[in-house]
């Protein structure tokens, strides 16, 4: 693209219009800040953003409406996690069973290292049980690295409740319904 560069007129060469213009612009802004108090700065710890829906903050585990852990320790999130921030300890064969009927199992321990987490949301996407969600916490602070490895208890308490379909609850009914399902050949 060729920009048309007009030679400056004498008046423009004097710099005076530019000076007056500069004075006006700066004064206008100083006036709007000082007198009208239109400041663009948001003073952070006191004022906070309203986060948009779908914001990807820290991932936490959620419970269902009956206060039971949704996670079934399938370890899909652990495998998909790009920075390997999630570490799940499954209950094992002799381990503790799930806290509800018809659920396969429950993690013995579920740790997310928030220093490694990149808030990508893959864990949420991959979870078949809708047990982990990226929530709106963005300011995770601690005095040591180990404090930022959140365990199951902490993740559950921070995650709150996310009501949804309770697969395990209706599992038996579903199984029975499947048996009587009219299959036509």
């Amino acid at each position, binding site marked *: 693209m060729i920009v048309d560069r007009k030679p400056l007129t004498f008046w423009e060469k004097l710099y005076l219009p*530019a*000076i007056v213009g*500069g*004075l006006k*612009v*700066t004064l206008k*802004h*100083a006036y*709007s*800040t*000082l007198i009208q108090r*239109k*400041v*663009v*700065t948001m*003073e952070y710890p006191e004022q906070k953003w309203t986060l948009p829906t779908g914001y990807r903050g820290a991932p936490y585990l959620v419970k269902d409406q009956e206060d039971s852990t949704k996670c079934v320790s399938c370890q899909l999130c652990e495998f998909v996690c790009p920075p390997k921030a999630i570490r799940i300890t499954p209950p094992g064969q002799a381990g503790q069973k799930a806290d509800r009927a018809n659920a396969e199992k429950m993690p013995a321990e579920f740790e997310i290292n928030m220093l490694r987490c990149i808030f990508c949301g893959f864990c949420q996407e991959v979870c078949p049980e809708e047990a982990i969600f990226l929530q709106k916490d963005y300011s995770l602070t601690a005095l040591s690295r180990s404090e930022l490895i959140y365990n199951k208890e902490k993740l559950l308490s921070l995650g709150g409740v996310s009501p949804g379909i309770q697969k395990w609850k209706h599992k038996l009914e579903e199984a029975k319904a499947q048996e009587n399902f009219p299959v036509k050949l």
Partner: protein
Amino acid sequence: MDFIPQSIQSWYFGLTPDGKMVLWSLVKIAIVIGVVQGIVMYSVLAERKISAWIQDRVGPNRTAPPFVKFIPVLGPFLTRLGIFQPLADGLKFLIKEDFTPAGVKKIYFFLAPALAVIPAMLTVAVIPFGSMIGDQKMVIADLNVGILYTFGIVSMGVYGIVLAGYAANSKYPMFGGIRSSAQMISYEISMGMSIIPVLLIVGKLNLSQIIGWQAANGWLVVYAPVSFIIFMVASFAETNRTPFDLPEAETELVGGYHTEYGSMKFALFFLAEYSNMVSSSAMMVTLFFGGWTLPFWGLDHAATSVGMGIAHVLVFLAKMLFFMVVFIWVRWMFPRFRYDQLMDLGWRRFLPLALVNILATAVWLWLKSAN
């Protein structure tokens, strides 16, 4: 005077006039340096605050020593104003590691900050910052060649910058130093030329007498407005302020001549720049805006009482602070001049203009005296 112990009184009255002069000069030097440093500290704050306001921000508003929050209304107010910020800044400079990069020319590297600061401090010596308090003239050295002294000292300031650029053994400071020397020379001449009409009109080099003339005949900015404009622009160039901040030019030269400096040595350059601003503002006030005088409320003649003396000092400070604010304000108005534009402005615009100005003033004075 009863509160002063007898021994000190008798010692003071036993001094010879020379001894008294030395004593009072030392007192004045201490006070002036203290005040200038205070102004420098708080002009850094003013710079940050004013720039914030112009850019729709709030500026420094958090720093406060721990006890301040217990003061009811005043404490939070002062904190929001950023009053304690300069203290924190100064402390930071003091406790930072004084790092000397490998490969610098050590002697010059240490000498340069001192050479930058000393001339900046020396210029205020001849500036009359008030009329009289008691029987003391409010000027450290009432030289008969005050203006010449100022110009001599001010042009020394360039050595600090050039030496810093040379000593750092690095390309950006080198560029900064080169630019600074070229800039200083080109503007020094216009600056010197711009003063000549003032001297033609007043006929004296003594700054106190120039103020006296202005008190009697009106401010010199009315008689020599072109001189004032040239002097003001040249002093922007002299103090390396935008739009002539080519020696530092953060965006092109990293930090210019002080790129390799840190901690207190860097702070000294900072101090020099702001002290230069103070002395340039003081010079502008003295030469063109009547110094410590005001044409009304009887403030136009030397004070007879202590109260009037203090009022004069305050008038001077107020005028000076106004120009400090202009210095800061202008920084947010203009983009930086290109190197060739700067040279062009200095040599091909201001120098001829200053010469014509001298001629015009001389002709005007000649016509006036012929009548």
